[in-house]
């Protein structure tokens, strides 16, 4: 008989390797929210998100921009008196939202992450101009011009090379990746 996991249990299971303390240990003290440098740009504070997860309010969590606004700075993690790895929990929510394809509209984070992984699978190295092609279309015209001018300046000043480097044993790396996830066609 199939067992249906609660949302809070699913999120806990997604914190696979870090073995953080369970979310249910949260005291709702708000140290995380008081610490977070990005909290004013979040729909819900980290404390609220934990409260929503514990109440299994999946839809409210998923439609919040909070976890995609986390910069992964781990300040909340090191201060949490209950020992919860909150930054890692935000990563779990990002993974869950990518996996289920449910996240707030208009966010750049999911596209950026996906493009980044595709780039690594295609070359083994990261290279800023390739990434730019994926997120720039979502910017406004003025932003695109500014980014273009800045990039040109970086190339001219010798800071930015024009061609990306690649891993030599790329075929091996790609086969390695296929042993972990079914990537299919990455082009």
């Amino acid at each position, binding site marked *: 008989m199939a067992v249906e996991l609660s949302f809070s249990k699913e999120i806990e299971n997604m914190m696979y*390797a870090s073995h953080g303390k369970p979310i249910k240990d949260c005291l709702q003290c708000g140290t995380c929210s008081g610490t977070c440098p990005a909290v004013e740009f979040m729909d819900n504070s980290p404390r609220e998100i934990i409260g929503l997860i514990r109440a299994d309010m999946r839809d409210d969590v998923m439609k919040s921009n909070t976890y*995609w606004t986390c*910069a992964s700075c781990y*300040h909340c993690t090191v201060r949490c008196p209950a020992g919860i790895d909150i930054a890692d929990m935000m990563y779990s929510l990002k993974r869950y939202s990518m996996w289920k394809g449910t996240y707030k509209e208009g966010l*750049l984070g999911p596209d950026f992450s996906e493009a980044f992984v595709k780039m690594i699978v295609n070359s083994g190295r990261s290279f800023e101009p390739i990434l730019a092609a994926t*997120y720039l279309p979502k910017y406004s015209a003025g932003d695109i011009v500014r980014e273009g001018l800045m990039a040109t300046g970086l190339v001219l000043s010798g800071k930015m090379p024009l061609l990306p480097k690649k891993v030599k044993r790329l075929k091996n*790396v790609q086969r390695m990746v296929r042993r972990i996830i079914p990537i299919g066609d990455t082009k």
Partner: protein
Amino acid sequence: MKQYAYFPGCSLESLSKNYNISTQAVAAELGVGLQELEDWNCCGATAYFPVDELLAYTLVSRNLAIAEKTGLTDFVAPCSACYKNAYATNKYLKGDPDLLEHINFALEEDDLQVEGKMKVRHLIEVFIEDVGLEAIKEKTTNPLKGLRVAPYYGCQIVRPRKDKEDVENPQFFEQLLSAIGAEPIDYASKTRCCGGSLIITNRKAALDMVYKLLQDAVKSGANVIATTCPMCNVNVEVYQGQVNREFGTNFSIPVVYFTQLMGMALGVEPKRIGVSASMLSLAQSTVG
């Protein structure tokens, strides 16, 4: 000369070339042997983890496996994000036989196996702990007297907690700056986040974080900001103009890598550490 397995990371080959050349120059001066890993791949920064956790650890493990194969004991990364990813992965490999088995199954495809036996270090730790502050002080021929430096730790060399280190008020960067004759300033934002990849995915939030950092450093009397991470450096240096436009400010504070300051203090030729003319004149004007 002690040899280290050196993982430069992608940024040091593009936007942060100055960090790479100054690292090599300072390491040579201090007798630290950096052997670059052969055929290393990207560490994933903060962008793999939202897609697949196991994939993220596997790609980091490939670099660790290549390092283990060299027979060296220490894996050194100058980038804080590379360092944190390698450190955490290495720790999980040691503590989780199941994860280790999964990853080794994937690594077979590149004839590699990993054990999790490297000692993962950030470059600044190698200079401070292995070379030592005393030795650095002795080799300082050109102390950076009067240069008021904001030591910017950023996040990932101090967080998440690795051992018993002080995550709230670390002091090692200040000590290093004092050893090369500079004057470290005290300011509250030294371990606040620069915004990281939010500079791309949430520009507004990231610019706000950079703005607050710049304001704090400048108000506290810094005339230069020193970083230990390419991401911090790019966000704080390259986006200063956008901060000025957005917040109506007028910041023009130079941002350098700590290795560039060390290079200047050790008397390395400016072109070998990628220091700009304006930075040099600033340093010279404050001396004496």
